[in-house]
């Protein structure tokens, strides 16, 4: 048996290498306008918005799969890789919004603000991004220690992020591609695994509302 510390390091290293090289290769292809075999990337702008959005969503799903996996297979060390994945979700979300602003809207500030204000599916994305940034900032150890039990309360909002991102995704496409339904199934499974915790949380929320 290798020490957990070693496993954590290898896992993190592989994840960094994989996610960063994937990002670099994707943006490189979009910038030159052809893929590595010389075929056109037909719409380089949609290509990067799609890549960053989908990778953000996928890494989010992965992040939320870690604790069930760690429990099921008794691999407590996995939990220590979760922060890194969570931060990657925020990274891809930022890249996504930045790509939208820079490449779809040609960096026009007025157009960007107009889109943020006008489009309900973007409100959901914005709310998700805001929550993700809050979670990222509070993942700094010092802040986390200061927050005490409030930290867990805040970080439970990640389940809302999950739902928001899926709806944002579903809303952004025309018609209903199969993909959206596959992701829905995964989202529901991830929530179902935690149904007890989530129901308890919802009840607590309601109680708080009554009190206040």
């Amino acid at each position, binding site marked *: 048996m290798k020490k957990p510390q070693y496993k954590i390091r290898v896992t993190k290293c592989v994840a960094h290498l994989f996610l960063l090289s994937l990002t670099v290769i994707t943006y490189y292809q979009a910038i030159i306008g052809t893929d590595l075999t010389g075929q056109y990337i*037909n719409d380089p702008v949609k290509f990067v918005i799609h890549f960053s959005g989908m990778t953000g969503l996928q890494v989010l799903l992965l992040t939320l799969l870690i604790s069930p996996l760690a429990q099921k297979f008794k691999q407590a060390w996995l939990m220590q890789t979760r922060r890194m994945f969570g931060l990657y979700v925020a990274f891809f979300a930022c890249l996504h919004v930045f790509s939208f602003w820079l490449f779809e809207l040609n960096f026009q500030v007025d157009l960007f603000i107009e*889109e943020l204000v006008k489009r309900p599916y973007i409100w959901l994305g914005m709310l998700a991004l805001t929550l993700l940034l809050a979670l990222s900032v509070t993942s700094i150890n010092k802040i986390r220690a200061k927050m005490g039990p409030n930290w867990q309360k805040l970080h439970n909002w990640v389940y809302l992020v999950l739902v928001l991102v899926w709806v944002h995704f579903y809303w952004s496409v025309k018609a209903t591609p199969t993909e959206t339904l596959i992701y829905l199934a995964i989202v529901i499974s991830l929530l179902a695994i935690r149904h007890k915790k989530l129901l308890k949380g919802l009840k607590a929320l309601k109680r708080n509302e009554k009190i206040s």
Partner: protein
Amino acid sequence: MLIKKTSTSDISENEVTPENIYKDRRKIIKSLGFLGAGALLSGQSQQAHAISWFKDKDEEKSALKALKYQADEPFTEALTPEAKITSHNNFYEFGTRKTDPKQYEGMLTVNPWQLNVDGLCANPFKLNYEDLFSKYPLQERIYRMRCVEAWSMVIPWVGIPLADVIKQAQPNGQAKFVAFETLYRPEEMPGQKSRFAGGGIQYPYVEGLRIDEAMNPLTLLAVGLYGKELPTQNGAPIRLVVPWKYGFKSIKSITRIKLVNQKPPTTWNLSAPQEYGFYANVNPKVDHPRWSQAQERRLGSGGLFSQNYIPTLPFNGYGEQVAHMYKDMDLAKFY
């Protein structure tokens, strides 16, 4: 930020150049290989992007027969490369991703074909596959194509004015609209076979025009592009092209054209009536509920930093030829 504006002084490599000359030139540039790649890396040369790195897409397959046609006047805007036009398609019958339809190239049986022209007319008739290419003189028409998703292309179509076909049918006074229908053949169209593969819209795909729109000289029944017959993914063997309307009006692989007296149902309008209207005229002032229509990106050969952002024009720039048909209409209401 590089903003590339198209103007007459900035014309791409393949701009209205006969294909053989265009290919010869590409071969010469390709034989300069190293130099071309250098220019590409330095990002200075737009045309270098049109030269692929490792293989030449246009030379790969050419089972599509070449057509004889009357060439169009030179166009002032750069043509979208053929490889893009034939691999970036919304044709949900073959899957919802834009790259899906190309996977089915050559897999739709187009010969034999039957196109029925009927309805409220004195002379209903049928056209078979050969008729599509031989019954009417073919003309090239270089048109802008504006997708409702805010990207656009410039495409050299080859086809027949729809008006010629409709006149032959001799519509009677009751014919106020024209209804179109796409082939329904689930065995060959996976999107029709499975609700999931087809994105959940209704099949067969149907479209419609008002009779005056159908008779407008711009309205084309295309049977080819870039001088050759249409590949499957672009709507073989015959499709509609209505350049002042969003792309979804230009129904593909048509089997029926019917003259009717009421506004016919149209597929995207049935699917999401608040997003897609019957008229679907390109209009920068009427947003799609989920995105702005004020601007479009012209898909050319460039990468991320050489995108061509252009303001969208009313009627996609064809106002002179078509605006009169809508002069008493509130276009925000009849979108």
